[in-house]
């Protein structure tokens, strides 16, 4: 397709504002997906996405569209995730496009994450099309939300498109706006090939698949290619585009989005942000600028439950990293858990998703330790070190100063919750910065505002979001970004199980709060560690001094109920289920400890 007939755009929005549902309607209107293959949020193809009802991976898809001018266009759409933990997916998707649809829920208005996404798109100079979605809902306030878009982001009134992804109203208007307002791509098709790798995936048959946006030149079957950064060379096994399933086409030209099956089996040979070109004299000499690497916010150890699976876990991490460019990891070991990996994540949801994907897609049983932020530490000897796990915290006499990461948190909410938020933020060692009005309702308390606060990152990791939601009846939404380090006063809380110190259960807590934290953590562990064949004492200690003690009493009863009529197979199945449950636990000495126990520190506030 000639470039004047190509349009590339992403759909961006705050979480749950209807991106994936809107994508469904566009796929239907354009006939890109056969009706019989259609289902709700069809682009959310991972099991996890469907179970959680959220998008985790950005997903590209090509659609044909006949515009009002009678011409046929090739439209490439990328549905993106809305959750703050997956912003890295959004930024890479945006970099493959000339424009974006900004979706705003007509019942919610502009939310914190809406603005964060707008800034991402503006940084890339993308054309934005504002869409007010869910206008079918009785509680929708389309005019008010449109006014917010005009006032806060600066759109023209006639730019706003009204739509319902549920009923399909406005969907053709959006596509028409895409054709009219988003500029076509303009790369030189006769220049040497330069294509940006924005995502990748491993396929057992076709090797590494790289997802690319061609910026210049052409990528076709039969030509040897090269990934410039990793200097991996290959001849493509397959070239094609997304529909959203892989569709062979043999040729991708400047302006187009698609994939190349490289046949490469070594997963470390490709990396997101790399540049693809022709191998040999026809190739480009200068790679594209690439992406900023993702900056991990939280760190946790991931260990196989069964230490024999260490190598399998390493392979799994390598493959998953292909498809999750934000994930970082390096080997580490723990006295209690054996050999595993220290992993860096963009947030707790990201961490949860990674663990789930590793377990499901690679059939592993894993234990993850409680997440920690990264501290900066100046030793008494003047040395600067960074630590991201409690085990690495030096004893107090060796520390001159500790600093912890702080974040700038923006929270959108009705004005009546300003006081509630103030309280929550103060409880969490945070500071108020300012409040801006997004609109002005007659009743001042109904106006929507954007509050800005500063908090230690560690304080928003643990149930901050849940608290925010419950204290504002779900009306508040948040976004956050790292803004720097500040001095911290923290100590390590050690946990002893059955008399033995368990490094993987220790936690870094504010010094002033260490005693109560120890009691809460010991109590929580007592709830989470199942009863064993003997009494199991649990102790919390600070600097060798025990501050709390609980006991998990010995189990007395685990016996099968009546099974009728000699159904021995079933008895065996019941036992096998118990055995599986035990296998998922980690042996710490002679105590079976379930995965959840390692997360106890997150549940302390209950």
């Amino acid at each position: 397709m000639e470039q004047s007939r190509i349009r590339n755009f992403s759909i961006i929005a705050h979480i749950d504002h209807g991106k994936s549902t809107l994508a469904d309607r566009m796929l239907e209107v354009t006939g890109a997906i056969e009706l019989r293959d259609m289902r709700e949020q069809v682009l959310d193809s991972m099991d996890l996405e469907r179970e959680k009802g959220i998008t985790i991976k950005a997903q590209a898809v090509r659609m044909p569209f006949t515009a009002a001018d009678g011409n046929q266009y090739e439209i490439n759409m990328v549905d993106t995730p809305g959750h703050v933990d997956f912003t890295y997916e959004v930024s890479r998707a945006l970099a493959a496009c000339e424009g974006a649809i900004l979706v705003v829920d007509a019942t919610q208005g502009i939310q914190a994450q809406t603005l964060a996404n707008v800034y991402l798109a503006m940084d890339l100079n993308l054309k934005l099309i504002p869409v007010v979605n869910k206008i079918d809902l009785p509680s929708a306030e389309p005019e008010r939300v449109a006014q917010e878009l005009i006032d806060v982001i600066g759109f023209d009134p006639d730019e706003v498109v009204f739509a319902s992804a549920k009923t399909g109203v406005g969907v053709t208007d959006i596509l028409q706006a895409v054709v009219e307002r988003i500029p076509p791509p303009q790369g030189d098709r006769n220049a040497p090939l330069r294509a940006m790798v924005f995502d990748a995936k491993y396929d057992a048959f076709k090797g590494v698949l790289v997802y690319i946006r061609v910026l210049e030149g052409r990528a076709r079957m039969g030509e040897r290619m090269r990934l410039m950064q990793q200097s991996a060379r290959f001849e493509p096994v397959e070239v094609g585009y997304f529909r959203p399933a892989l569709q062979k086409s043999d040729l991708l030209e400047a302006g187009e989005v698609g994939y190349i099956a490289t046949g490469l089996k070594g997963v470390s040979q490709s990396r997101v942000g790399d540049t693809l070109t022709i191998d040999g004299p026809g190739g480009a000499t200068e790679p594209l600028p690439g992406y900023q690497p993702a900056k991990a916010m939280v760190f946790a150890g991931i260990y196989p439950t069964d230490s024999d699976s260490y190598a399998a876990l390493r392979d799994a991490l390598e493959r998953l990293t292909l498809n999750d460019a934000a994930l970082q990891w390096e080997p580490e070991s723990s006295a209690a858990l054996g050999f595993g990996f220290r992993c860096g994540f963009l947030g707790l949801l990201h961490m949860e998703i990674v663990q789930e994907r590793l377990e499901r897609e690679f059939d592993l049983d894993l234990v993850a330790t409680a997440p920690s932020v990264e501290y900066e530490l100046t030793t008494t000897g003047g040395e600067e070190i960074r630590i991201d796990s409690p085990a690495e915290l030096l004893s107090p006499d060796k520390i001159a100063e500790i600093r912890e990461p702080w974040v700038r948190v923006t929270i959108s909410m009705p004005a009546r919750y300003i006081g509630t938020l103030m309280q929550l933020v103060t409880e969490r060692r945070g500071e108020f910065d300012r409040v801006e009005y997004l609109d002005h309702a007659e009743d001042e308390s109904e106006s929507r505002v954007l509050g800005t606060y500063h908090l230690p990152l560690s304080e928003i990791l643990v149930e901050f979001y849940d608290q925010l939601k419950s204290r504002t009846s779900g009306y508040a939404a948040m976004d956050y970004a790292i803004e720097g380090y500040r001095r911290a006063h923290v100590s390590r809380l050690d946990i002893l199980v059955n008399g033995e110190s368990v490094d993987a259960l220790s936690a870094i807590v504010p010094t002033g709060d260490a005693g109560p934290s120890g009691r809460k953590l010991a109590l929580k562990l007592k709830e989470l560690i199942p009863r064993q064949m003997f009494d199991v004492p649990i102790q919390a200690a600070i600097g060798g001094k025990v501050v709390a003690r609980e006991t998990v009493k010995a189990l007395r009863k685990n016996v099968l109920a009546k099974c009728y009529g000699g159904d021995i197979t079933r008895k065996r199945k019941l036992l096998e289920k118990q055995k599986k449950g035990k296998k998922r636990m980690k042996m710490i000495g002679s105590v079976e400890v379930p995965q959840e126990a390692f997360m106890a520190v997150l549940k302390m506030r209950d």
Partner: protein
Amino acid sequence: MTTQPASAPASTDRSRSLALYLHIPFCTAKCGYCDFNSYEGLPGHLVADYTPALVREMELWAPAAKDLTVDTVFFGGGTPSLTSLDDMSQITAAIRAQFNISPDVEWTLEANPTELSREHLDGLRALGVNRLSMGVQSLQPEELTLLERLHSPERVIEAVRDARAAGFDNLNLDLIFGIMGQPLSKWQDTVERILELRPEHLSCYALTVEPGTALYYRVAKSQIEEPDPDVAADQYEWTRTRLAQAGYEQYEISNWALPGRECRHNLVYWHAEPYLGLGAGAHSFFLGRRIANVDAPNRYVEAVNESWEERQATGRGELRQIAGGETPDEATQRADAIILGLRLMRGISIADFTERFGVSPDDAFGPAIAKHEALGLLERVDGQLRLTERGLLLSNEVFVDLLPDEDDD
């Protein structure tokens, strides 16, 4: 440990014997804790079609059992006492026609006290039923309500009296302990009043809240609390002492009998001896295979009829009522033998096991046995390996470690 090995008969030579189980899947109303293959409110025609299907299934199996002698018959359910005497006489006639029945056969029928009339009991006795197993569960009205049992405590006493009068001199009563909110004293009261009835046999099971049951739903919704395992353990320990005092011998984790009154049928299961199960959802261990029939009564009836008609027409054909089966491999057989055998108070004979499998229990399960001996859950006494007193209530902890390793797929 000072307890004597119980005197339950060891595995006598039953190589030419067969145990017969017949499943009657109908109940008046589903009890709150029940996850057995039983149904309330099935259409009348299905109940009517069930008896002929059972008879036909016997005909299908009979040739395979022609060299064996049936020394125990067990009608289980569901509620076999709901089956009319008419149907019952057709079924018993067919049993006698199709199988060789030993003269001293133990012939058990499970009954619910609710609708058990004196006439019915007389009729059953006349048909040759000589052992009655009654689902009592509790003698506390509030517990019976919680369990959604339909009968009152008084009805139990009457039914037992009627059974005695009808000539049943071999009676089992099923009881449930460890019910949520049930204090030790209530359980003691139930047991004391049951002892006054002097049944020959007692089964006491701890309540388990099984997924899918009404009780499970109520616990999940926090309408009722979960059973307290420590209270259940106290109740169990008290029961062992009290029943021993009263002259009952415990021969299995959940079963007690007056001397010589152990249930022959249940011993067949625990000795891993062959049994043939007939009816919807019935299980068999026959000709070296473990077999399960389809659960749904309507599908069972259809399948049996199809197989029977095919057999009539062609003289052959598969048994379509079978939903699945397995031929246990050597490792599974060993595991079954030890897991089932350990349920018995006397445990397993180390010599017999070694002779049967050509490998000693220690060679087959060394680390697991050592671990649980160290934990005080297993012990060796007079060439037997058995659960300790503490091990009885923690038997699953032992059994889990005796399971064969699953093949990694």
